């Protein structure tokens, strides 16, 4: 009797293991909330959900797309009140408040499955809090310096690799009557990107993470050194004027019109730059230069994620959706140039032929040995991110106020990390 039960259980296990990819007979409703409100990502997501629906005809899938900015505040309400079965969000500290409040489902079991364990190893860390995984990544993208190749050629410049070269290049660009970098800091986070790179290059990845975790004083000399490096570019006139009034999109025309030569941005800036008329002969990419030669290079690569709310009703179907969305095949499709135009998270997928994606993928997989950060406002706690990015903006406008700004941030650190 006992042995018979064992065998049936084993048979069932084998059967289900084989049955899962074919059809797990999922039924009921599956509600999916998305923040991919821009036209292209929206179409990509809807097409992917369509393919998932074809595989599971018994499932009634309902998709709600919410404006990306509005989503950031609405998520608190819907996670507690009327939770969907799957919701998009961001990795690292950005998901911590929800994890700590018990609003996200622990999906460590998915990572225990061999297919997922192998395929998703690279983003597992970003989704881990307290040794458990709370969601899966579905896309990520590189950051770096996008620049006008034609302007560089005109001025006889080449892609810099060291801080000295970067500054020398910038000097020549400024002398030609242009700004080196365009940036729009109205919504603050763009300044966070600059701080990420300058601090990671000056003091290294571990120091940067310690600072984000509140373990280092903002008045530390090493932090000051980061700002001193930044100040060199500011004093040179490296950044466009009045950047505090522009959004990141409003800063694009400066580069398109050739009034600025480069933009430190995420790969999502490529699409609007191409739409504005820049060809691939005019536009190129280089990794942010080395500053401190003793420090290993590390990069920002923000990851967008899927989570299952703890209050979800159809968790079985939601798990199946997560498996589907991260499968090698789907990852290749949704991240290709026609869709999201970003990097796939599954090791088994292939990266699109787009030159920026190829460069970015190579950079992240071979030349980012120090570590991979999410982004300042995802690595630091929300409050600290807000206060500090405001400080970065103020510093970029009034670099002489550095001491006052840092003492303000240090006060905030004392209050925020308890």
């Amino acid at each position, binding site marked *: 009797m006992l042995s018979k039960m064992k065998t049936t259980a084993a048979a069932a296990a084998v059967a289900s293991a084989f049955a899962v990819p074919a059809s797990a007979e999922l039924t009921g409703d599956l509600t999916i909330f998305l923040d991919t409100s821009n036209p292209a990502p929206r179409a990509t997501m809807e097409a992917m959900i369509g393919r998932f629906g074809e595989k599971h005809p018994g499932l009634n899938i309902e998709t709600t797309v919410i404006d990306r900015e509005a989503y950031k505040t609405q998520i608190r309400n819907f996670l*507690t009140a009327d939770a969907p079965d799957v919701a998009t969000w961001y990795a690292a500290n950005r998901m911590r408040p929800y994890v700590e409040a018990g609003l996200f489902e622990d999906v460590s079991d998915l990572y225990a499955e061999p297919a997922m364990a192998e395929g998703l190893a690279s983003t597992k860390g970003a989704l881990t809090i307290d040794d458990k995984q709370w969601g899966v990544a579905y896309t990520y993208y590189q950051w770096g310096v996008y620049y006008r190749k034609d302007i560089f050629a005109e001025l006889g410049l080449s892609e810099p690799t060291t801080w000295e070269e970067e500054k020398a290049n910038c000097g020549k660009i400024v002398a030609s009557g242009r700004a080196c970098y365009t940036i729009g800091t109205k919504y603050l986070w763009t300044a966070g990107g600059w701080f990420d790179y300058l601090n990671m290059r000056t003091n290294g990845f571990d120091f940067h993470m310690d600072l984000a975790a509140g373990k280092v004083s903002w008045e530390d000399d090493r932090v000051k050194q980061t700002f001193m490096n930044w100040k060199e570019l500011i004093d040179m006139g490296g950044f466009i004027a009045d950047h505090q*009034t522009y959004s990141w999109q409003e800063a694009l025309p400066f580069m398109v019109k050739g009034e600025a030569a480069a933009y430190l941005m995420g790969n999502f800036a490529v699409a609007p730059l191409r739409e504005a008329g820049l060809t691939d002969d005019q536009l190129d990419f280089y990794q942010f230069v080395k500053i401190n030669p003793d420090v290993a290079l590390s990069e920002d690569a923000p990851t967008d994620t899927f989570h299952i709310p703890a209050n979800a009703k159809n968790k079985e179907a939601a798990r199946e959706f997560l498996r589907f969305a991260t499968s090698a095949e789907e990852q290749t499709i949704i991240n290709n140039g026609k869709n999201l135009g970003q990097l796939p998270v599954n090791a088994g997928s292939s990266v699109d032929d787009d030159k920026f994606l190829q460069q970015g993928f190579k950079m992240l997989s071979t030349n980012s040995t120090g570590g991979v950060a999410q982004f300042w406002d995802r690595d630091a706690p*929300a409050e600290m991110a807000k206060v500090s990015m405001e400080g970065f903006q103020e510093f970029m406008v009034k670099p002489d106020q550095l001491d006052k700004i840092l003492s303000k941030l240090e006060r905030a650190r004392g209050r925020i990390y308890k």
Partner: protein
Amino acid sequence: MTVASDIPETESWFHKNQQKIAPWLFLAPGILFFAVYVIIPIFQSFNLSLYEWDGLGKAEYVGFSNYEQLYWEYVDRDAFFISLKNNVIWLFMYLLAIPAGLFIALFLNQTVRGIRIYKSLFFFPFVISQVVVGLVFSWFYNPSFGLLNTMLDWVNLGPVNVLGDENLVTYGIIIAGLWPQTAYCMILYLTGLNAVDPEQIEAGRLDGAKGVRMLWHIILPQLRPATFIAFVVTIIGALRSFDLVSIMTEGGPFGSSRVLAYYMFEVALSEYGFRMGYGAAIAVVLFMIMMCFIAYFLWSMYREEKGH
């Protein structure tokens, strides 16, 4: 028959007190909603301001520590101080809408062909949404393509980045706010002017009053009710200024255009805000400031009614 004769003896309690109960019955829905949506939330806010709560997990009682932090922010000239200072600037600058509205009303209060069209054109900014007003003015001030800098260029001035300069930004936003608020005050005065007694003007004219003297001694006293309402709506409007700040600058650059209402939203409900208790404490402070004005208005209205 017996049943009918019983009625006068056992006349129901409702019937006996109908006169007294009726007004309360009519008021009941209003009172109920006012209590649920206004009175009770006021006490809830005050209660919440004594807790530390991220809006998701458990709330922790912290006594008056939120207020203490606000005090220190005030001492350190931090965000709370800036918001409070900006609120005061708003309060005074916004009052300019009253004389401006009066001036336009006097100007438009004539019988010319097509005056109705002019009046509606002047009233137009009040009809469009504050969001649109904010956007229009952001474009006007925009340093790269804004009309303001083009105009300043004609007279060889500028360029000036109004919304990017921490000393100008609040004034820039208030000017945007004055545009619809002036229209509002204008419409209040236009209605008031309709009620001005022509006989008194005639009498004044016989006594030789003209121009400013006529305005000050004859017209303005008769416009008192309109002025009173204009004051009330403008002061309340200045204190609850939020939409323009949110649309035009999001409190920036580096937080220098914050006002209390926006700061409250920022710390409690915005993208990076998770401090419900702290937000509630700011709300309580704002409520207290508003209460001073509201109490004064109510008191003067009460006095007025008693006088008549």
